[in-house]
């Protein structure tokens, strides 16, 4: 008998009697009246920053301004970045800033869901020095239960919730922003109805 059969048989012999799966009544979970305000305060609390912009087209303006300073900026939220998937880890290691479109923002923890489709290259949002994620105001919801209701986690081969910049407190519990991933995270929030 191989390991697989052996393990499965041992589990079957030892498992307890049937226990029902609970129904998750999602109404019991917290909902915020002002999800945008909650999202912003949570994001600040976990070391992230935000900037409101008035339309999707302002993302490329933002990218151009940032590149102006001689930085290597990749705007994966732009259209013509199909070559990104071909880039090697070593090439990506030189990226100063990556701008990536998010799909969903969660107010309770400021996590933003994005998949390989938005990342273009799985390594990009992790290896860049600064990460900028783009969200539309109406893509922000209250809690994680709603998030899983509104996404199919296996829609692509890889997807992630990213909440704030990478961090560690492994040295005497002192919080250091910027462990292995980005040392900063900024969220561009598109307010479509923003009056100029």
């Amino acid at each position, binding site marked *: 008998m191989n390991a697989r059969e052996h393990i499965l048989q041992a589990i079957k012999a030892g498992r307890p009697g049937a226990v029902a799966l609970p129904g998750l009544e999602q109404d019991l979970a917290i909902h915020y009246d002002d999800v945008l305000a909650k999202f912003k305060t949570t994001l600040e609390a976990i070391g992230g920053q935000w900037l409101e912009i008035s339309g999707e087209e302002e993302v490329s303006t933002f990218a151009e301004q940032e590149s102006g300073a001689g930085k290597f900026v990749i705007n994966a939220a732009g259209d013509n970045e199909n070559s990104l998937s071909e880039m090697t880890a070593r090439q990506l290691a030189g990226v100063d800033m990556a701008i990536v479109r998010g799909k969903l923002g969660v107010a309770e*923890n400021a996590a933003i869901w994005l998949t390989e489709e938005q990342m273009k290259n799985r390594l990009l949002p992790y290896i860049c020095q600064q990460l900028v994620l783009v969200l539309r105001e109406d893509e922000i919801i209250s809690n994680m239960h709603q998030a899983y209701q509104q996404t199919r*986690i296996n829609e692509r081969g890889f997807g992630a919730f990213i909440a704030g910049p990478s961090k560690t407190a492994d*040295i005497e519990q002192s919080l250091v922003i910027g462990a292995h991933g980005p040392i900063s995270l900024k969220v561009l929030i598109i307010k479509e109805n923003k009056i100029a």
Partner: protein
Amino acid sequence: MKAHAILAKEFIADEARTDWHDETLWFIRQKRDKAAHTLPEWEQLRQWASEIKNHTLSKLDEYLVEFENNARQNGVMVHWASNGDMHNQIVYDIIRQHNITRVVKSKSMLTEECHLNHFLATMGIEVVDTDLGERIVQFRKEPPSHIVLPAIHLTKQDVSDTFHQHLHTEKGNADPLYLTRAAREHLREKFLEAGLAITGVNFAIAETGGFVVCTNEGNADMGAHAAPVHIACMGIEKIIPKAEHLGVFLRLLARSATGQPITTYSSHFHKPREGQQMHIIIVDNGRSRQLARADFRNSLKCIRCAACFNTCPVYRRSGGFSYHTAVAGPIGSILNPNLDLKSYSDLPFASTLCGSCSNVCPVKIDIHEQLWKWRQVIASEGQVAPAKKLMVKGMAFILARPALYRVAGRVGRWCMRYLPFLLNHKLNPWYRQREMPGPAGRSFRDWYIKNKKQ
């Protein structure tokens, strides 16, 4: 192997460090409370989590098969290992197959449990631990002392000395930002040159065949997305039935662990990236045996948040190394006797049975009750320390004889009053860390008889 009490004694020899350790972990416990109190539904979440895990354990074999089928359809190679040796061999075979020499690994308590690094080192393969805390203890040739905070037993000066020796940082510079940046540079190079990345698994989803890995540092992702081969190692108990259950567990995990609303990265792996190879190793290593023990099976619900470590009055004051095992703390004290009763028979006694661990557990494991039940198993199998056994037998003899008990009480009180040196000496283990209490004027029984008459 030295027992918990002896190792704890070594730890508390440095009083200032013990106090720092105690207070720091208690501070994390308080952060956990603050995070929990932001959610009115917190207790409901714990209840759901507990019920989901109970349900999953009752159909664990079916969910594992469902997970395996879906993962295979996603293009992931699935392996099964009955024990640690088999797990290590599978990892080694994959490494050999690809002629890999450089391996990076993010945090995985399972691989610690299986002593993977040590095994691979004997086969000539160096594994670089990429979690900052794990890298620190790896340089020092120490195991992690805490499952979430591997280097919590060290001061920044210790880390500074270690980094000066291994990474040539400035001598005496103990600035955490400076030291973290040095590790960032050092490990970036390791990520880029690695041929293989090993990660743990926080949750494996049966209905999709995917798995979720949670980190704050981003090290699991840096490794997995850069290397040509990715191996994810999981215990059989990591399964959850559906994607929607992640909502419950991800809301609980980081809040219970560090008081954060969620970890920075919650990565959902389903398919290898273009040109990459992805493996999952499903490991039993005693878990199916634990599942069959009705009194102890629900220890398998654990999601490794370490809330029970941070709240435990014994762990906080004795340090992780006193548990002489990969998973320390209260949960380790109920998991390890299953793996090796003789070697870990001291651990269920490393507790005051105060129950704080059970109260903070996000999946409602009755940890303190299991500690007490393990004590009974250990006693019935004759694994209790001889001195303790003799003392308990003596007590039982006296307590079973009321007249003798009364005489003994009177003699004891008289001795405490007139001959204190009989008790206040180094051979009395109780006296070693404590002052003896003042003797009572009379016994409760005498008081009761007198007051009843009035």
